[in-house]
């Protein structure tokens, strides 16, 4: 057992850094670091750069465009990208649909969609949750009825992240209403430009537009857009959720946030001294740093143990729980660190082209916004309560 990075891994980190320095426009990195709203082009610019290097889909099988990286390499890559201020790679096509098509899709579907995902020609959204089916996803009611060469789809999806930019949606639909919930679901690829598809924004509590409702009214979907077998969609959905777990704990995000927190705490004054010298604040920072140190090792240990081509099992739920708690704690501390200046909120400041003096210390205006926005991470992706149920049932046999 060796906890140190090998010389090859250290060299890999340097290689990643050099690539990012070359390929990530500084203006875009600044945009990301200052919390400004990203446009569709911002994501696509970065993803095209990654694809040019062959690094857009690290976890795909090599024969489909993957990199063949070890878990440690994937971990290093994620950490460096976040630290440098790269936009977050949009997961839906790359980390979710791609692996499902590779494993369960037809040759025609793979040939058609995988290259378009890599080339950023399609932007995929995830049509899973419904107003009545959140944690109980299997109870979903969006209906797909076979009509000749098409399925006719009716229903409503919600929490569709970045659906406003998407032109395609992979959708869980009910094709057999008489079967047990999990056994009547199919996995359908829906063109969002089809008649009957309507996307409506959902504004979050801090004012952001990230998620949407998608209304489906008599949407005709060609039968060739069914992935795998009818009524086997739940299997593919479960596979998709467990496929890519390397980044589930968000270690890269937390490390960057912690570094940022230390910098802010050094520059903020409390009784004439840096806030980092206040015993209470120093204790808060130390506790979360200790938790993060342990979790990073836990994360690497779990994903390394899974080995080539295999995925970690129920233990990855531990990573989701602890990882989100640490990230949320860091957003709380960043907000706390700026004191009274956590209150000012100027929505225009997050648009490109806003040039006025910030209110308070640099970066203060986004701290509260981030804190409130990040309350979502313990809820989405399988709430932390559901993750605890998974551990209880599948690991502890309770």
């Amino acid at each position: 057992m060796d906890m140190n990075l090998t010389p090859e891994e250290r060299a890999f980190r340097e290689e990643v850094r050099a690539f990012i320095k070359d390929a990530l426009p500084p203006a875009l990195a600044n945009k990301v670091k200052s919390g400004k709203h990203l446009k569709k082009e911002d994501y696509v610019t970065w993803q095209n750069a990654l694809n040019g290097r062959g690094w857009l889909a690290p976890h795909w099988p090599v024969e489909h465009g993957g990199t063949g990286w070890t878990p440690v390499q994937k971990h290093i890559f994620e950490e460096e990208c976040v630290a440098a201020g790269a936009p977050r790679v949009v997961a839906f096509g790359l980390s979710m649909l791609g692996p499902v098509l590779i494993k369960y899709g037809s040759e025609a579907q793979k040939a058609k969609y995988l290259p378009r995902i890599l080339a950023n020609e399609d932007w995929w959204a995830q049509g899973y949750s419904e107003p009545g089916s959140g944690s109980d996803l299997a109870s979903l009611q969006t209906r797909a009825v076979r009509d000749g060469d098409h399925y006719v789809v009716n229903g409503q999806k919600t929490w569709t992240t970045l659906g406003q930019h998407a032109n395609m949606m992979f959708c869980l639909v009910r094709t057999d209403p008489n079967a047990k919930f999990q056994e009547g679901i199919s996995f359908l690829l829906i063109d969002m430009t089809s008649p009957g598809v309507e996307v409506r924004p959902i504004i979050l509590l801090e004012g952001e537009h990230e998620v949407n409702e998608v209304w489906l009214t008599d949407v005709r979907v060609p039968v060739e857009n069914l992935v795998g077998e009818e009524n086997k969609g739940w299997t593919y959905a479960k596979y998709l959720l467990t496929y890519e777990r390397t980044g589930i704990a968000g270690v890269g995000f937390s490390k960057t946030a912690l570094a940022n927190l230390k910098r802010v705490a050094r520059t903020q004054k409390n009784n004439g001294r840096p806030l980092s010298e206040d015993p209470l604040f120093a204790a808060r920072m130390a506790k979360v740093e200790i938790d993060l140190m342990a979790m990073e090792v836990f994360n690497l240990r779990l994903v390394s143990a899974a080995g080539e081509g295999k995925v970690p099992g129920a233990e990855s739920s531990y990573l989701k729980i602890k990882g989100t708690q640490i990230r949320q704690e860091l957003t709380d501390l960043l907000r706390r660190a700026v004191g009274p200046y956590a209150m000012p909120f100027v929505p225009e400041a997050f648009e490109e082209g806003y040039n006025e003096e910030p209110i308070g210390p640099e970066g203060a205006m986004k701290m509260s916004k981030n804190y409130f926005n990040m309350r979502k991470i313990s809820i989405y992706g399988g709430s932390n309560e559901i993750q605890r149920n998974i551990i209880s049932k599948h690991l502890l046999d309770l």
Partner: protein
Amino acid sequence: MDFNLSEERQMLADTANRFIRDRYDISVRHKTAAMEGGYDPAMWTTLADLGLIGALLPADVGGFGGLGEDIAVVFEALGRGLVVEPFLATGVLGASPIVISGSDAQKALLEDVIAGGLTLAFAHGEPEGRYDLSYVATRAEPQGDGWNLSGRKAVVINGDTADKLVVSARSSGETADAEGISLFLIDAKGAGVSRRGYGTIDGGRAAEIALDGVAVGKDDLIGTPGQALAVIEETVARGIVALSAEALGAMDVSRDLTLDYLKTRKQFGRTIGSFQALQHRMVDMCLEIEQVRAGLLLGAGTLEADRLERERNVAALKNLVGRAGRLVAEESIQLHGGIAMTWEYALGHYAKRLTMIDHQLGDTDYHLERFIALSRDAA
């Protein structure tokens, strides 16, 4: 000990709560918060006519209350409605220095405040001062019979629209010294005063205020020059009682929304409130809220006690509110799931206000340290 509200206070509570319930629902709140200046002047007058400003001030200035319990009753109602009208800035932080140590001429102005005419703001905190009450770098340089004020004031609640500002400035000593601070009442639109107004993330308004050579005379001084810290402390103590009561009102609504959701939302074929794990967390939330209710009784009841007892109790109260506020804000959202993350659902707005209360007049850690220091002094 008597835990019952007097008949008059009960009437005040009923009046305020009925008004908020019937005429200040969340859609009204959103509308008034979006108005220029961050509140509705017509609504302010209506609330003044109900006596809600007068309740915050004593009889000798034209009010009919002014004690800790009066402040608590009014602000608990305001917290339930997430009311954005400038009660804290005008009725507590702005008015208290005048009530405590103002001249007769200054006290006479409070009649107009009570009527909903004149608005005030408390321009004390500074960009580098964080929560420290004695941190005043703004200087009051002697000039003729008066002074010349220069400095910067930070996150002045409702400072952008206030008619008059209560400003602290240092006439002697070093930046963080307890001695040497003076308070002045100045025109917000006077020469040398510039304001940059902005919204706050919880739906309120505040301002950065710059004072560049503001000329003030002896008539503008509030109380004794160089001795204002005691007045500032007492003012802030009253503000803490106000904020804590506001937090309690917001917590009660957050709790009710969450409890109702647990009883109605179904997943996996049953109400989510039927899951014991969530029941226990709901109980924990209720327990912390009851602790705050008790802490508020303690804090509000000792506003008129001697300085050390008062300061220690309000430090305890604000620390308690900070801890409980975080738990209620975070848990109420988490127990709801995704729906509470939306702008459209009211809870998110309560969570934002609760969280921001911990950034006003000292946060959880500041008051813990203050409590520790005061406990040493009391020993």
